[in-house]
């Protein structure tokens, strides 16, 4: 099992979610996050005073997939979340030791 964390633009969330659902991904967790990459932040101006915003708001999508599904999941996120502009985000693939479904006590891939 692998946990895939994808940090994407806000407006790409629905598109990514729809594509992953079609792929067979049955659950996901999303959260509002802030951060910066190579492009750093941006500047905002309020009544002439400029502020540098270092941490840009993004959405983090977390899904857990079987090892054999990792490649196509990555490809799907890449295809749907990409605009080609700076700030499209990142995808992290993380090894996962165990998953437990709290309601039934099932473990492993059965709990995904």
């Amino acid at each position, binding site marked *: 099992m692998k946990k895939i964390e994808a940090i994407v633009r806000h407006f790409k969330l629905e598109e990514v979610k729809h594509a992953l659902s079609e792929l067979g991904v049955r659950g996901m967790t999303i959260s509002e996050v802030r951060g910066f990459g190579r492009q750093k932040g941006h500047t905002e*101006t*309020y*009544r*002439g*005073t400029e502020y540098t915003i270092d941490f840009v708001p993004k959405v983090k999508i977390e899904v857990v997939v079987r090892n054999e599904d990792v490649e196509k999941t990555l490809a799907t996120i890449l295809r749907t979340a990409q605009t080609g502009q700076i700030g499209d985000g990142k995808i992290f693939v993380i090894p996962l030791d165990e998953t437990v479904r709290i309601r039934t006590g099932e473990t492993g891939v059965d709990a995904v």
Partner: protein
Amino acid sequence: MTQRQAGAPSCDSAQVATSCESNGWRLDIARGLRFIFTVAVLSLPGALAWAEDPKPSAPAPVATLDKADQAWMLMSCALVFLMTAPGLALFYSGLVRKKNVLGVMMQCLMLAGLMTVLWGLYGYSLSFGGAPGEAGFSPWVGNGDFVLMRNVTSTFNEATGLVETPVEGSISRLTHMLFQGMFFIITPALICGAFAERMKFSTMVAFMILWGTLVYCPLCHWVWDGGILAFGAADAKFGALDFAGGTVVHISSGVSALVCALVMGKRLGFGHEPMPPHNLTYTVVGAALLWFGWFGFNAGSALNSGAQAASAFCATHFAAAAGALAWPLLEWVFRGKPTVLGCASGAVAGLVCITPASGYVAPMPALAMGLAAGAVCFYACTALKSKFGYDDSLDAFGVHGVGGTLGAVLTGVFATRNITPEGTSGGKLLGLLEGGPLLTPQVMAALVTWVYAAVATFVLLKILDVAMGLRVTQQDEVQGLDYSQHGEEGYIFI
């Protein structure tokens, strides 16, 4: 022109001249001080019985109440109240950091209560007590005619067997008192923008009691009750037109705001820590409510529902619209993007600028005034503030002080007898544009207001600094006023 002129008990010019000659200014000041002392004594609970005295000392008014005017003025009262809470509360609270959102809202809401109480006890009397030519009238300060609502509410007349309602023009005096009371609420609330995020709440309360009593009430009397700055008044030194509060409301609050910012000093971290507005959506909603309420503020200042009210309504709307264009357009040109805050600020600047002129200028000059206000206030809030380095947190001076002064001066340029009722203009030419002499007294009245508001505010702040302290502690300021002053938080996410 005065905001009670339409129905104030009047006297002929000979009476006014006699009154003027017999009252030296030293006597007037002494009378004013005696009056303030008397008010303090009479505010004791024991004075309440006196407040119910069914025999008014002022002459019995002639009842000419007009129901249409009354309806419009009651509506205007509600519209002006809307400007403070929620209008100004939202406008200002969106501009502060989230740890101070409740602090700013509290100041607006608390002042709505505090200033109303003061207005009912003695503020209305101090501002509008007496009329030129009446016995006991002073051009410097009001008298005790309306203390504790005496001569304001209806009374039963044993002789006639009728309930008699005191009137002011074509509306009841109670309505006039309420309408003017709404101005007494919002004016000090405007100052809060200058010392936002750092003033002790207790000191703010004390300051506003003193400022309202010693700065607002006299100014109101000077301009709107036949005092030393009233247009056409026999006692006026620099009689100027101020339809809805260019001097009384905006210059007084704006200049006092600047003095507050200078005396109190900058917020901790100002200039090197980010202090962006925490919620501009509040600010936009607040600005829209201000725009809406301003129709009552300006059009209501006609004190009736006639043609001048409609003209003021139009001028108000046109100036706000032009201001909402000018400020963001300048941002677009000079800074690359038109901002939402710039649009909201421009609308308010236009509204401030047109306030003194709204009853006296035609729609096209109103557009010009709005454009000028958007441009000048944009400069004041962006370039001027950073050049001099003062921390006027929410630009109370940049918008109200600068915009109000601009409006007072431009009233002297654009005011026209074509719009102004004959009772005010006397059929004479007014503004510079039509060849009238109004500009000089407008400038002088603005100058007097600047000096008086600045000096009085400075003295009050210095006294309060010694007596109570002006600022919260550094720890409280870092923590935010919401928790340190009120023990609450604006945003609690569980």
